[in-house]
């Protein structure tokens, strides 16, 4: 059973997508501090900092894999961004636009499979596309003043790779682990477990 019968969001879909966003909003907030703290450590090759980027993109893919409804990835990533802004992120209201861009990426991947397939390759594609959304935004907005060959390009490529691995594959593994705990029983992702 891969997709739910109706595309209407149930209350539990809305609340759980929001809760995932909140949990990651809190993680982002902590991650933002860590990000700044690692600036010095990454100074030798700042584009490598993008390796950490993937964590920012997990909620998009995770919500898509769990909720399996149109808009889940976009909604969750955007709400996570708003929450991190409410908690006082240093990037403030810009992160909301950023969240939108990133969410659209994952959303496109799930839409391309008509919200019917949620297997590993789809998750990886969703991760890659969120990474692409993020990379485009940063390429134009944040990194404009940097050198193309030694910074902007490697930064964008590393972002996409990081997103594919951490957000794409990571979210897939996480969904499996969550399903094993039984919390996803109300979702198609959590249905196939042994009876006790």
């Amino acid at each position, binding site marked *: 059973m891969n997709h739910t019968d109706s595309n209407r*969001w*149930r*209350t*539990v879909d*809305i*609340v*759980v*997508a*929001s*809760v*995932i*966003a*909140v*949990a990651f*909003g*809190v*993680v982002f*907030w902590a991650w*933002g*501090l860590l990000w*700044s*703290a690692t*600036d*010095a450590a990454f*100074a030798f090759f*700042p584009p490598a900092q993008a390796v950490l980027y993937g964590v920012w993109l997990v909620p998009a893919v995770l919500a898509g894999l769990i909720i399996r409804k149109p808009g889940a990835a976009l*909604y969750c990533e955007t*709400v996570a961004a*708003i*929450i991190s*802004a*409410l*908690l*006082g*992120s*240093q*990037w*403030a*209201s*810009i992160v*909301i636009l950023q969240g939108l861009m990133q969410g659209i990426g994952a959303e496109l991947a799930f839409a391309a499979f008509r919200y019917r397939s949620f297997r590993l390759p789809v998750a990886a594609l969703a991760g890659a596309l969120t990474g692409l959304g993020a990379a485009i935004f940063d390429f*134009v*907005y944040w990194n*404009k*003043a*940097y*050198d*193309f060959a*030694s*910074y902007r390009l490697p930064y964008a490529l590393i972002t996409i790779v990081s997103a594919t691995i951490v957000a794409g594959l990571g979210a897939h593994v*996480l969904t499996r*682990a*969550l399903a094993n*705990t039984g*919390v*996803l029983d*109300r979702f198609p992702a959590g249905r196939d477990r042994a009876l006790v």
Partner: protein
Amino acid sequence: MINLEPVAAPGAPLARRNPVAKLAAAMVFTLILVATLDPVAPAVAIAVELAVLPLFGVRYRVLARRAWPLLAGAVGILVTLVLFAADRSGPVLLQAGPVLVTEGVLVTALGLVLRMLAVALPGIVVFATTDPTDLADALIQNAKAPARFAIGALAAFRMVPLLEQEWRMISMARRARGVDAGRNPVAKLRLFGSTAFTLLVGAIRRGTRLAVAMDARGFDAGTPRTVARRQRFVLADTLLIIGAALTAGAALTLSVLLGTFRPLIG
């Protein structure tokens, strides 16, 4: 500690404005401002922002406390630019191995740091002066956001402090069950990971139960919702948005007139 309370004096004239208007004003302001990479426009913008701060009822000390992570970001920009700047024109100021600092590099760095501050401050001010419930209400009533989603997100947001408490309880529970990491950093990282996972599981479980409780009170009844708290969008709110657009536009114009304008695209 995560602090969720709005920090503004509640009676301040601009803090009282409609949350959607405040958010829109901040967005408009930043979107116009990011059109340039020069230092002049953001410098003007920062001056304006600091000048209107009292109208939002936010004290400078509070702002400084919320904005300090920005300073770390500024250092990061500086280091990165010294190493990777695209534009290295102008007289050379410092050369040591791969490090080549020219006047052009410094001007770009100044521009970027100021820009970061200028676009971050409005967001900080808006969110610091806005109650989440009011924001959700205004999004529903004035921005036509879907009510189920806005209220759902708001209900989940209420869990932030609970999650923080939960983290502590989980850590204590592991210890009570004989699980700890001692001084081994790898074990510490694994314990951190497993605690974070348990937190996520607990959060989803709470979310599922909360959804049931919300349905029990008719959240998915399908009847059109009424609103108990009216949010008004009045002339002053429109003026706030227009004012933000005009101020940002004026900063850009000034930078064009002074010849420092450097467009983001092109």
